């Protein structure tokens, strides 16, 4: 097993019980549920995307979200971005509502399989997103150059993205998420489509972000990545948070997290969390 990262000095669990002096959570879900309602030809269908989620992320903490397909990982992230409105419960990002400007200034998001305007080059796309983020024109060039360098895109900065592979688009996705120097990064399957070299570079980038004190949420099917990078892991199944694990729970033995995950989500063990 590779290096594991040290926990932030102020974990949410320490802070949660420390009364008025508690640091503001980077991300806070309090009993959040999301029900998808679809109406078609007078017939309404309801599907639970997330059920009664209570979870907090401390500033500087890296949280892994694990779960099978359809378990509610992406819904959890979209709620934090204000792309979805919760059906019930309360959600805050650094104390702000998720669809507020303050919240959006503080968050960077890398969606699963990011898509960009194919006629733009990475530099043009970053300039576009930078302008939307309100980065002053004087700083924009330097910021773009920095993230292009960090994500290994500098040699390809002027190529049209129509020619890019999935992995290259993933790099652009990471670059745009880091561009406005957010305090919280929500990364949905960030290593998807990356080659082994790119994965190593990606780990280095995340490691640097952690050292800078950024809060990270890592949504992934790659348990080994989560194992290496996260301080804490939340396992979702059928829209419910079924288990949270601390780094100490898996750090003792390589592959332990995978065992714990399988044990949690395995159909035969359904009864354990139902």
């Amino acid at each position: 097993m590779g290096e594991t990262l040290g926990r932030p000095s102020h974990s949410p669990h320490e802070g949660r019980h420390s009364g008025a002096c508690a640091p503001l959570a980077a991300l806070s879900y309090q009993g959040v549920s999301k029900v998808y309602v679809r109406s078609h030809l007078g017939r309404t269908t309801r599907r639970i995307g997330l059920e009664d989620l209570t979870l907090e992320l401390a500033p500087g903490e890296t949280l892994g979200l694990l779960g099978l397909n359809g378990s509610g990982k992406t819904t959890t992230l979209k709620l934090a971005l204000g792309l979805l409105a919760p059906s019930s419960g309360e959600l805050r990002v650094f104390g702000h509502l998720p669809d507020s400007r303050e919240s959006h200034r503080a968050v960077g998001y890398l969606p699963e399989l990011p898509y960009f305007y194919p006629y733009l080059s990475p530099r043009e796309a970053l300039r576009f997103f930078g302008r939307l983020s309100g980065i002053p024109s004087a700083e924009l060039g330097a910021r773009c150059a920095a993230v292009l360098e960090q994500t290994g895109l500098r040699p390809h900065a002027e190529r049209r993205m129509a020619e890019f592979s999935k992995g290259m688009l993933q790099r652009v996705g990471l670059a745009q998420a880091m561009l406005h120097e957010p305090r919280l990064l929500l990364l949905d399957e960030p290593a998807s489509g990356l080659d082994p070299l790119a994965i190593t570079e990606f780990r280095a980038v995340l490691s640097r972000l952690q050292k800078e004190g950024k809060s990270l949420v890592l949504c992934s099917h790659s348990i080994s990545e989560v194992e290496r990078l996260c301080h804490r892991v939340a396992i979702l199944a059928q829209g419910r948070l079924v288990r949270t694990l601390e780094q100490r729970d898996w750090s003792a033995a390589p592959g332990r997290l995978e065992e714990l995950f399988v044990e949690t989500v395995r159909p035969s063990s359904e009864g354990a969390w139902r």
Partner: protein
Amino acid sequence: MRALWPIASNTLREQWRSRAYQVALLFAGVMLYLSLLLGMLAVDQELRALLDFGLGFIETLALAAAVFGAANQLLREMETKVVYLVLSRPLSRGSYLLGRVLGLALSIALAVLAMSALHLSILFFKGWAWHGDYALAVFGILLKLLIAVSLTTLLALSTTSPLSALTMTGILWTLGHFIQELNFLARRLGESTASWPLLALLRLLPNLELLNFRDRIALPEALGTSSPVLFGLIYSLAYSAACLLLAQALIRRKDL
């Protein structure tokens, strides 16, 4: 509002590169050439025919590009999830929508002006003397297209299907040109309850005939009001604003 221009300029760029827009512009050249041939058949009324065919083609092709753009662009962005990257930035959904519409409207206005320049060059070549009514006709086309873009955007967001939005816009565009006929029919039906849906429809439809200066060219007494430009401008801005405010309400409530 600060983010309006980046969205609008990007839409302008996207539209410029879209196949539908390029085909519309290319087709405009072919159609204007065709109007040259048809105009010749009108013998002494060649200039009138050239004027009417040209303006008609310009409006139709710009309309095609406008409604196709408005019906597709937002839904495509939602489908491809580009919208996640945009709306996770500090800009409101309303600003995003307005930026999109502004960019599309600008791209359509540029296309209309480019086609008009080509049309005017053909008219001047044929010996036409400039008349301000031409500018009025083009202005009317632009106002009608602004309504079309806003209405299609609203329909695209409410139906979530580009094809439905295109079809419904086509129907409303047609009915919007039959206001006089519908009004006439409503009067014929009188006070009966059968006239109520028609009366309601009449009050919701865009009055495109009001802006149809193209069909009343050189008829200042037929423009219906003493200041048709100002009245038309206020009407189209108000109607478009109403459509866009409703569209904003829809996009704000939309789960992405």
